[in-house]
């Protein structure tokens, strides 16, 4: 079991330490091979879990031991983590493969550094998923944060990119604070961080549970880019595109989902927290969908789309549809990774041009990319029988059962999703080419190692939904049954079949309409001029960054300035005055410190003698000590 994270760790160490020695090929093979090996082991583990079904906790060694609690470095592989393992290692492997081609222009040692980071990321993510307690999860949590930072700032010579990396790091820290507090809270209350112990603990008051859940959710908000901590994710697109695909779409950002799904027992016990999760999720889904409508950067669109989809997942979690959320994580991992990689392929072909206004008509130049991208778009838009349909529909159905308003807003978001995705698709691949002549002449389909992952992911995006065909469609809801031992507190909605049909039909219809509208609007003559009014607001992301700047950064700066002045004038005078006093007196005392070792030792011996003498006559010593204190 420990092999799964061990391989990526070894890969990271080897390609990291020997980055100056390894050739590009060797680094690629080592890194990809490590993930492949880990994938194979995960696969075996998956089937073991599937057949055995028992939750296995493997303690490796004692990590922290205090009188109050003991934390083992233990791994737990159950249905939930087995599924995540497959997603992480599987998609991770595809993206490693993709990266060997995508990053091929880098210097060898940068190339190896990249793969080292990537492997380290996979290792941390596996640690996060496999940990048998919150502390191990937190280690992985911080590890993925670190790797995300390193990878966003991979091209560290560009200060904008490093700024984006720092932003991601700091935003995440705010969330991590919540997580850490939650862990402390749990440790303090339960005396253990093991999932089994925590979930079975019955000494929580409802306030405790709510506090823990909200604190955990703050952590999830940071990591999974929910309102109001989402702004780092679009900026994180500064990193190489495969990184965006792996970290900022498929895996890391779903860590929040994983955490909440893992803690479903706690959440189900706290209605307030659930409502909070649902509302924040829904708000994020809608809010970022509106922003995505007007973005022109191919990766930005995908990034906001990711935020939006994450919102859906949280909605699912909030309404108790844990399976749906996890299912959506999986399908989203397939098609969003696909879309990012497709975007990467486009960017690669366009020589690092990311603005869709300068693209168009790439259909005939990049046939494989085009088809796979199209499949991805259909999947995300929720057209049956593609994977996105099943997962999104499950969440929406659960939302309807919970509150029809949620459903209505959710469908609106889905419609926007379909619209902006096909806007993206149409402006990129349809119509005529709008880039420079030079770009046109260099347009080429990507190499096989890039298109192969695309094709695999496209296949998965198409068929991935059949893993969990709901009962209403005469499926067997395989994933649902598989996960049920872990997600014990899943709320079953009791909608009649006819209601479900209507819900499905309406959401699909709305999404399809939006889709067709988008294709019509953008395929031939896209209006890509400067947006006005609401459009401008949307294009500027609701001015959230500016608002943050005005509301937090600027006041903070001015307050700091004020304090600085105050401190410099007032307090510094005081401090400097006392400092001068100390300086003067120490100048006198310093004469004792003549730098000659002999005299120091002499002082030492003399003081020892004096101490002994005092000890001899203890009353004097006692009085002396009393006088001092």
């Amino acid at each position: 079991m420990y092999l799964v994270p061990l391989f990526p760790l070894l890969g990271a160490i080897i390609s990291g330490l020997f980055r100056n020695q390894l050739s590009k090929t060797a680094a690629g093979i080592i890194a990809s091979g490590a993930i492949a090996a880990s994938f194979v082991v995960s696969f075996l583990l998956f089937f073991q879990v599937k057949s055995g079904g028992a939750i296995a906790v493997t303690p490796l060694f004692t990590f922290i031991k205090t009188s109050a609690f003991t934390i083992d470095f233990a791994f737990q592989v159950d249905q939930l983590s087995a599924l995540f393992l497959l997603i992480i290692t599987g998609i991770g492997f595809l993206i490693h493969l993709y990266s060997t081609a995508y990053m091929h222009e880098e210097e060898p040692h940068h190339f190896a550094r990249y793969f080292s980071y990537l492997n380290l990321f996979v290792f941390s993510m596996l640690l996060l998923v496999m940990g048998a307690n919150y502390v191990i999860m937190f280690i992985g949590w911080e590890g993925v944060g670190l790797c995300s930072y390193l990878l966003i700032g991979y091209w560290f010579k560009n200060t904008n990119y490093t700024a984006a990396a720092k932003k991601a790091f700091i935003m995440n820290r705010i969330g991590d604070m919540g997580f850490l507090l939650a862990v402390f809270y749990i440790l303090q209350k339960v005396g253990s961080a093991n999932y089994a112990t925590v979930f079975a603990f019955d000494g929580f008051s409802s306030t405790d549970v709510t506090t823990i859940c909200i604190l955990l959710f703050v952590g999830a908000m940071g990591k999974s880019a929910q309102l109001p901590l989402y702004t780092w994710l679009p900026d994180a697109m500064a990193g190489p595109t495969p990184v965006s695909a792996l970290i900022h779409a498929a895996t890391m950002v779903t860590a929040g989902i994983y955490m909440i799904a893992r803690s479903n027992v706690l959440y189900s016990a706290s209605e307030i927290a659930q409502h909070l999760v649902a509302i924040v999720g829904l708000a994020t889904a809608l809010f970022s969908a509106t922003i995505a409508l007007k973005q022109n950067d191919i990766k930005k669109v995908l990034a906001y789309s990711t935020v939006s989809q994450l919102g859906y997942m949280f909605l699912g979690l909030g309404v108790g549809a844990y399976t749906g959320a996890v299912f959506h994580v999986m399908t989203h991992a397939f098609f969003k990774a696909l879309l990012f990689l497709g975007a990467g392929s486009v960017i690669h072909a366009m020589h690092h041009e990311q603005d869709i206004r300068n693209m168009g008509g790439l259909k005939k130049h990049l046939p494989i990319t085009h088809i796979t991208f199209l499949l991805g778009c259909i999947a995300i838009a929720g057209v049956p029988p593609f994977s996105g349909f099943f997962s999104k529909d499950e969440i929406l159905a659960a939302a309807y059962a919970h509150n029809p308003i949620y459903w209505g807003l959710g469908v609106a978001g889905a419609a926007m999703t379909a619209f902006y995705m096909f806007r993206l698709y149409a402006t990129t691949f349809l119509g005529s080419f709008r880039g420079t002549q030079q770009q046109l002449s260099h347009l080429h389909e990507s190499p096989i190692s890039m298109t192969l992952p695309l094709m695999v992911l496209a296949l998965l995006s198409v068929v991935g939904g059949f893993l969990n065909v709901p009962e209403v469609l005469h499926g067997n809801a395989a994933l649902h049954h598989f996960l049920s031992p872990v997600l014990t507190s899943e709320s079953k909605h009791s909608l009649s079949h006819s209601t479900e049909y209507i819900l499905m039909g309406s959401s699909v219809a709305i999404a399809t309409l939006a889709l067709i509208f988008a294709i019509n609007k953008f395929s031939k003559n896209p209006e890509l001029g400067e947006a006005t009014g609401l459009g401008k607001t949307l294009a500027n992301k609701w001015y959230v960054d500016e608002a943050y700047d005005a509301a937090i950064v600027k006041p903070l700066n001015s307050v700091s300035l004020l304090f600085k002045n105050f401190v410099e004038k007032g307090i510094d005078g005081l401090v400097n005055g006392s400092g001068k006093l100390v300086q003067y007196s120490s100048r006198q005392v310093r004469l004792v410190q003549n730098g000659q070792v002999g005299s120091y030792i002499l002082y030492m011996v003399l003081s020892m003698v004096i101490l002994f003498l005092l000890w001899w006559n203890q009353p004097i010593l006692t009085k002396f000590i009393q006088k001092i204190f």
Partner: protein
Amino acid sequence: MGTTQLLFWLLSALSIFSAMMVLISKNPVHSVLWLVLVFFTISGHYILLNAQFLFIVNLIVYAGAIMVLFLFVIMLMNLNKDAEPQKSIWMKLAGAISGGSLLLIFVSVVRSASEMQSKQALLKTGNIGLIDQLGKTLFSEYVIPFEISSVLFLSAMVGAVAIGKKH
């Protein structure tokens, strides 16, 4: 008074005398040799206490290795001249007085430790100093300290080489 007592007094007197000579000798090489003699007498004490292993290790490590190292350094530096820097007489006096008073304090502490008055150190018998006893304990209960000390030693060696290298 048996042979053992006689040997004890002889060795003690010799070790104190040689320790004094370490201080008094002007020539560092003589100091080293007197110190070697001190180590020999202390090794003799170990034999009296039937600590055979420590006896031999003391000889190998202190007399055979450490002091040779000292000799090496002194000889290479050509410090055999008597022109060694001397402290002023007052500093010497102060040092001697404070060291002496430390000794006085120690002695009075020891004398006042009443429970020590009747205690005896076992001479000649007792097998804990034998190599198999020590070895078994060392390699069962004290393996980790042993390994750590070996790491310490290795790092000291590396450090010494690194410091001593000409730049």
